[in-house]
């Protein structure tokens, strides 16, 4: 480890309604692997996007080798010696490895020069490549190698790796670590973005922990354990519990049994033998870091994906795993997926029209194929009044509402039909504190009236505040449930980081 290569001072970046980076300050030492650890939404990506010239900070300075560093585009960042390997690859599938590499370089270079350079890089850093293979034929790990080589061709001083192991097999991870070690030995610096605790300890020298846009701590990884890191990453979140178990009945009314699903897609997580049971009136939380199978599981719970490999979903003694969304609604199961714009609501349509996306048997919205507009409008007005949605009226477009208001409206739409089961993903994602509070309140109230609720969320505060039981999903596996009132935060953190004791 050497001198400081990058000084980040007081970087602040805000987006509408959220501050992604709050006075972020830390140094990165030369010739080391420096981790940035944090939950999703902690502000890691914003920070590296600023470093790579994709975003401009509102305030603050960055110094590279003690000189002011300011870039407006990735091309400039590369010129100054910062390269980045993204989580999602940007390669042309139909072209060969060599062709992709030549497209990625800014200066002119002949094929033979390129080949010489590549041979050199391949052998030095343990990055074997078949130059003539088309990208489509490569595994995720091989594609990542192409990306790394492409960046190395520009000889960067600092290499940013964004969640590099998320699409790799364990063997590929091993070989990536060999590469990273070789790079550091040569005097390069690696900025390693991750939420995996084990990786931080095994490969990184220093770790900066971020939470809600702020730096919690920067320290050497030498004295850290997965436990201490987890606590810092998640914060002390067990303060205000107010979950009430009294109203829950013993009767299980929703059961998922041994659901497995393969996708054959490196960007989707296969689900492995997922089982859980929800009792009447219970709020069941599924925690986990994004990309561990949550959205895949959600699609299976809503019926948007009914192509499962094995397993069953039982509700009211009926097997429903092959039912589509409408058939499940007919049984009084209701859903709110994570994404409001374009999934649970259509931004281009009015609030009234958006009511029609989710119809339950007792709604009287349609007769002989014709929409009964008055009934729909009445229903929309009810939701607007009851859930205090701020809007000029039911004919306002969904896109004109703030995130929080639209979310209140969508959840209101689902709750108003008094479903027996509510399945909801990230109920308060990206919305303001006021709306967050009122949504959590209505969920708790709903459960007390006998609705079973399944909440998938990355927000541990939220899950601890409203759920009765929590399981953690990691890499498509669901842990056993823990009673929320008795759970230990370290235990959760370890499970979320993939460490099962």
């Amino acid at each position, binding site marked *: 480890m050497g001198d400081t290569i990058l000084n980040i001072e007081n970087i602040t970046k805000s987006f509408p309604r959220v501050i992604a980076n709050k006075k972020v300050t830390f140094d990165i030492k030369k010739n080391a692997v420096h981790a940035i650890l944090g939950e999703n939404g902690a502000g890691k990506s914003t920070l590296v996007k600023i470093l790579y010239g994709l975003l401009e900070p509102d305030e603050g300075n960055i110094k590279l080798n003690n000189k002011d560093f300011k870039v407006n585009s990735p091309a400039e960042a590369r010129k100054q010696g910062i390269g980045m390997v993204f989580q999602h690859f940007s390669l042309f599938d139909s072209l060969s490895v060599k062709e992709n590499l030549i497209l990625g370089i800014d200066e002119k270079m002949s094929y033979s020069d390129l080949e010489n350079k590549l041979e050199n890089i391949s052998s030095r850093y343990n990055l074997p490549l078949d130059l003539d293979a088309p990208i489509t034929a490569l595994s995720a790990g091989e594609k990542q190698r192409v990306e790394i080589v492409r960046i190395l061709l520009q000889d960067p001083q600092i290499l940013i790796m964004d969640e590099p192991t998320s699409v790799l097999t364990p063997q590929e991870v091993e070989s990536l670590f060999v590469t990273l070690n070789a790079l550091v030995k040569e005097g390069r610096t690696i900025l390693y973005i991750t939420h995996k605790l084990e990786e931080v300890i095994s490969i990184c020298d220093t770790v900066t922990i971020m939470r809600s846009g702020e730096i919690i701590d920067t320290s050497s990884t030498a004295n850290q354990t997965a436990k201490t890191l987890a606590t810092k990453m998640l914060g002390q979140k067990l303060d205000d519990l107010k979950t009430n178990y009294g109203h829950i009945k013993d009767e299980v009314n929703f059961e998922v049994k041994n659901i497995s699903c393969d996708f054959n897609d490196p960007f989707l997580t296969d689900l492995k033998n997922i089982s859980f049971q929800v009792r009447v009136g219970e709020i069941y939380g599924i925690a986990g870091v994004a990309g561990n199978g949550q959205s895949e599981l959600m699609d299976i719970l809503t019926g948007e994906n009914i192509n499962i490999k094995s397993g069953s979903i039982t509700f009211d003694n009926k097997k429903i795993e092959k039912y589509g969304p409408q058939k499940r609604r007919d049984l009084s199961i209701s859903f709110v997926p994570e994404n409001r714009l374009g999934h649970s609501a259509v931004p281009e349509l009015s609030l009234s029209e958006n009511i029609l996306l989710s119809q339950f048997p007792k709604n009287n919205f349609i007769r002989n194929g014709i*929409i009964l507009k008055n009934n729909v409008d009445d229903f929309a007005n009810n939701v607007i009044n009851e859930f205090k949605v701020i809007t000029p009226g039911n004919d306002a477009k969904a896109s004109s509402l703030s995130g929080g208001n639209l979310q209140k409206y969508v959840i209101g739409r689902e709750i108003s039909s008094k479903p027996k089961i509510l399945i909801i993903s990230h109920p308060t994602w990206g919305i303001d504190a006021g709306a967050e509070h009122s949504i959590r309140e209505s969920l708790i109230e709903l459960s007390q009236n006998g609705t079973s609720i399944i909440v998938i969320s990355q927000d541990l505060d939220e899950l601890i505040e409203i759920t009765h039981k929590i399981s953690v999903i990691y890499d498509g596996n669901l842990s056993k449930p823990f009673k929320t009132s008795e759970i230990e935060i370290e235990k959760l953190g370890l499970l979320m980081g993939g460490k099962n004791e």
Partner: protein
Amino acid sequence: MNSLFPSIVSRSQSSSLMNFFVPIISIVLTLITGSIIFVLLGFDPVYALYTFFISPISSTYGISELFVKATPLALIAIGLSYCFKNNIYNIGAEGQLTMGAIFGGGIGILFHDTNAFWLLPLMIFAGAIGGALWGLIPAILKTKFNTNEILTSLMLVYVALFVLDYLVVGPWKDPFGYSFPKSRPFSESGRMPLLFDGLRVHFGLIITLFLIFISWFIFSKTIFGFQLKVSGYSPKAARYAGFNQTTLVFFAFAICGAFAGIAGLAEVSGPIGLLYRDISPNYGFTAIIVAFLGRLHPIGIIFASLVIALTYLGAEDAQLFLQIPSAVGFIFQGLVLFYLLGAELLINYKLTYKKLL
């Protein structure tokens, strides 16, 4: 210093007022560009534009002709809006039109010496079936094999045209036609009734207006219209709502094909009266422009069909009086589409010049 080339940045909110004005702006820009073209060709732009856009409709006959041309355009365009609203790019309406003409015209040829009230309704029905069946081919290919409907529907246009070619030079050739590539004429009751004596505007116009009204009702009042719209705006939301997208694709293609088929039948049983090679001056393709110029709205489509029909008439007059090739009409249609797409882009995106260091 700013960079030389602008980059295209998405606008967070598009202006609904400008959205409304897009068609009008495109038409004005088309006229301006058209005048420049006329000047470059050495014509007085005022006289040329007059010849192109005013003189064709300065007589009752001219106005009747305008409606004759607008009828198939509007009917196909409203059919296309079922597909376009659902984000299905069916550009094979010309083929569906041709198949409609073949099916309906086939009935007309079969009963060429029959005079009965049921003949025309039967021909219209057969035309609708023919168009719908031809439209269902790309629908099946799209839903079963995930093929791109733009390619398949377009390629099927040429298949349909060759089928028609084969029929009129082969089995359906008029035995008394001196070997011309055309069929027997249909009987009197197999023809679209004329609305006014001495004018060519025919009953197809009434059918078109009726179907436009029905479509307006479907788009704005029924759950089917709502499902088309949702699945066009956001397939994910449609899946969430549980709408069956395969069914929607089938219906959209079938309805569009049926409308185009009726338009084709209305052409051959209206102004033409028999089957031959060139039954349509690309109505099926031009209707795509009409549909977008009319912003997929029934009323808009009526106006757009009149505007585009005028370019057909204007091109004929321009050829007659200015000795300009009638292809100028296609240039005007192309210009309208060009400006329309350009204005559309600028409503949703803005151009910004990045600062260079």
